[in-house]
C-alpha cells in the first residue's frame, strides 16, 4: 500500500502543524517519523486513517485521494497501534482481537485460528487470549495491540509510539520482535517515535519533522554524516550513543536508552 501526501497543510486553530507537506511512502517500505512532542507526528498518521482532515492539499492511498466516504474501508486496510495499546478493558484479549473480524462476518473458528497464529508470531502464550487487558503486563498488552492491528492481515501498519510506555528490558525485546516482523511481513509500515536508536533499529528510512516540515529524510547513517541543519545535529547529538550502538548492531540489554 502506497501513501502520498500532496501539499498537505494542517492547522489546529492558529497553530500550523504541517505546512505544504509533500511526501511519498512506497509500498512495502518501513519508515520512522521522528520529532519532538507536538511536532505533528501523530497527526500524520491520523490523516492517513481519515481520523483528521487537512485544511489544504490531499492524502492519496494507492494513488486515490482519501475521502470521507471511503474512510471506513481504508481504516480496515490499515492496522493501527497506539501507545499503551488502546485495548478495550471490558473485552478479553480474544474479544479485542475479534471486534473487527466479527463485524466482517468471520466465523468463530476462523477468528480463533487467526488469533492463535498471531499469538505464535508475537510470542504471546495462548492462555492469555482469555485474559482481560487489566490482567496483562504492559509488554503483553502491546503485543495484543499489534495482534489486533494484524488480525485482518492489512497491507499497511501504523504505529504511534508503540513502545513508549514500556520498561527498557521489555522494550528491547519487543523492539527486536517488531523489527523481525516488519522484515517478514513486507507491509507498508510507519512508526512514530521520538527515540532515534529505536527508529534506526526498526526502520530503513527515518524522517525528522520540525516546524511543520520534514527537515531530514534518509537512512540513519545519513543523519550522522549529512545532517541538514543545526536542529538535526542537536537531535542526533542528544541520542548519539544509542544511535551508534544501534547502527553497529551490538545492542545489549541496556539498549534503547532515552
Amino acid at each position, binding site marked *: 500500500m502506497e501513501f502520498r501526501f500532496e501539499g498537505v497543510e494542517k492547522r489546529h486553530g492558529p497553530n500550523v502543524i504541517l505546512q505544504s507537506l509533500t511526501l511519498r511512502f512506497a509500498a512495502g517500505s518501513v519508515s520512522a517519523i521522528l520529532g519532538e512532542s507536538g511536532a505533528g507526528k501523530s497527526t500524520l498518521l491520523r490523516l492517513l486513517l481519515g481520523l483528521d482532515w487537512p485544511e489544504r492539499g490531499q492524502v492519496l492511498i494507492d494513488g486515490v485521494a482519501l475521502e470521507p466516504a471511503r474512510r471506513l474501508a481504508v481504516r480496515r486496510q490499515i492496522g493501527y497501534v497506539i501507545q499503551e495499546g488502546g485495548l478495550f478493558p471490558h473485552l478479553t484479549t480474544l474479544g479485542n482481537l475479534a471486534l473487527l473480524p466479527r463485524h466482517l462476518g468471520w466465523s468463530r473458528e476462523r477468528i480463533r485460528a487467526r488469533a492463535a497464529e498471531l499469538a505464535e508470531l508475537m510470542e504471546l502464550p495462548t492462555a492469555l487470549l482469555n485474559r482481560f*487487558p487489566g490482567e496483562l503486563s504492559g509488554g503483553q498488552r502491546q503485543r495484543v495491540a499489534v495482534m489486533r492491528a494484524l488480525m485482518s492481515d492489512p497491507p499497511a501498519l501504523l504505529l504511534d509510539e508503540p513502545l513508549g510506555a514500556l520498561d527498557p528490558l521489555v522494550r528491547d525485546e519487543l523492539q527486536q520482535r517488531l523489527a523481525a516482523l516488519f522484515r517478514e511481513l513486507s507491509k507498508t509500515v510507519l512508526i512514530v517515535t521520538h527515540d532515534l536508536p529505536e527508529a534506526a533499529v526498526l526502520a530503513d528510512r527515518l524522517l525528522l519533522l520540525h516546524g511543520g516540515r520534514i527537515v531530514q529524510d534518509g537512512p540513519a547513517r545519513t543523519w550522522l554524516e549529512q545532517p541538514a541543519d543545526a536542529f538535526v545535529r542537536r537531535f542526533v547529538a542528544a541520542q548519539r550513543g544509542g544511535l551508534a550502538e544501534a547502527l553497529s548492531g551490538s545492542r545489549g540489554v541496556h539498549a534503547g536508552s532515552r
Partner: protein
Amino acid sequence: MPAPAEARGLRVPGLPGVLRALGLLLVAALIGGGAPSADAMGAAGAARAAFAGPTASVGSKNFTESLILADLLQLEAQRRGLTLVHRRAMGGSAILWQALLAGSIDAYPEYTGTLRAQLLPGLAPTAHDAAGEAALRATLARAGVLMGPPLGFEDRYALAVPSAIAQRLHLASLSDLRAHPELRYALSNEFMDRADGWPGLRRVYGLAPRSVRGLDHSLAYRALREGAAEVVDVYTTDAQIAAQHLTVLKDDRHFFPRYDAVWLYRRDAAVRWPALAAAINALAGRISVQSMQRLNAAVQLQHRDDREVAAAFYATLAPGGSAAQAASSAAGSPAPAPAARGTGSGPGSGAQLLARTREHLLLVGISLALALAIGLPLGVLGAQLPALGRPLLALSAVMQTIPSLALLVFMIPLFGIGARPAIAALFLYSLLPIVRNTLTGLASIPAPLVLSAAALGLPRHVRLLRVELPLAARTIIAGISTAAVINVGTATLGALIGAGGYGEPILTGIRLDDVGLILRGAVPAAVLALLVMGAFQLLERAVTPRGLRQFREP
C-alpha cells in the same frame, strides 16, 4: 404561577435522597395552594372531554372539614340514587379548582372568600352585596361552573393566641398585636400565600412580627402546644379552638371577607346528573358553625373516621328521618365506596399495604420506563453532538429545579388528576439523571479508546454498541438507579393529586396529626427505596464486565 417558596417552616437539609424526598412531601403537603389562576380555564376546558369520567365525582381538599362535606354530599346523592365517587384530600384550593375546570371532578366544597380573593382575583374581594354575588356567579358561569346555595356556616380565617397569653398581654383584637412584635407566628402556607391572608393582613394592621414561619395548618396547633409559636391562623370552625383554649382575635378593621361554605359544580355535570344538583340544593343551610366544629372535633380530636362521623350526622339531618332510615337506604343500594384507599387501620391494612405498594410501583415503574425510552437515546445523541448535549443537559437540569408540587399542578390541566399526571411529572424528574449519566458516561470514555475504536474501521453504531455503551454502562446504571430512588420518594407526592401510593397515609397522617399513620406511608417508601437501590447494585454488578470490575484503565 407563584413558586411555592413559602416553605420556610420546614428545613430540608442534605439528607440522603429518600429522606429528602419524604421531606419534600411534607413541604408540599404544607403548601396547600399557591397557584391561583383563572387563565387556564380555556385549556382545561379543552382537556375536559378527554378525561370526563363515566361516574360523577366529588373532590375534597386536604383538611377534615372538606372531607366531611364531601362525605355528606356523597350520602345525600346516594339517597337520590346517584353514586358519587369521592376523590379524597386532593390538595389545596388551586389543585381542586384546576381539577374542577379540567373535569377530573364534578364538584367540591369551596368558600366564597377563597373564590373572590384567590381563584378569581379579578373580582372585588369584599363585594358581598347582590351585585357582587351576581358578578361572582357570572365569572364562574363563563368557566362552566355553578355555585350552590350557602351550606349554613362560615369558615373564615382568623388569628388566634392561647387564652393565657391573650389575658396576660391584653390581646382582644388584631390591632392589639401591633404592640407585640416579639410574638412568634406559625401560619399555614396557604394563608401566607393568599392575597386575603397574611400579605393583606399585615398591611392593613401594620404588623411586623420578628418571626413568621409557614407550616401546615394541622401542625400549627402542635406548634402552639409545644410552645414553638404564639400566634396561629385558624379557621373559625376548627375543633381545637375550644379544646386548646384559644382566643380568636377580633377582626376590628374588617379585613377578612366572608367565607360562606358553598358547593362548586360543573354545569355539564348538573345536566348529566340532575341528582347532583338536587343533592347540593338539599344541603343548603343545613350545617351550622357549631355543627361543623363538632364534626371536625370528632375526627381530629377523637380520631374517628370522617365517613363514620359524616354518616352519623347525616342520619340526624335527613328530613323527618332517623338513623334507621338512613342506614336502611344505604343498605338497599351500593354502599358509598368505602375508601378504596382510606386511612387504613385494623384487619384490612395488610391488603391495603399491598394495594398501595402496587400503586406506588406502577407510578415508579411506568415513569421510569418512559424516561429510559426517551432519556437513553437523548443521552446518546447528546454525547455525539455537543451542540445538542449542552442545552439538553441544561434543560433537564431546569426541569429538576421545578418544585415537585408545582410540576404536579402543571400536569393537571394536561392529564387531569390521578396516576397520569403523577407519572408525567415523575417521568420529567427521571430524565435528568438518565440523560446526564448517559451523556457523561459516554463523553468520559478515555480518548485513546475512542480513537482505537474509530481506527478499527467499525461503523458508528457498532462502536457505540460494542465499545462505548459497555464502557459507560456503570455510569448509566448509576443514573437509572438515582432516578428510580428519587422516583420512589417523589411518587409519595402523587397522593396530592389522587395518584394513590404510599403518599396517602402520609398526607392523611399530616392532616390528622397522626404520626403512626405518617409512618405507615413513610416506612414502606423508605424500605422500597432501599430495595430499589439494592436491586440496582446487583444489576450493576451483573452488567459490569469482569475486565472493568477489578481494574481501571489498562
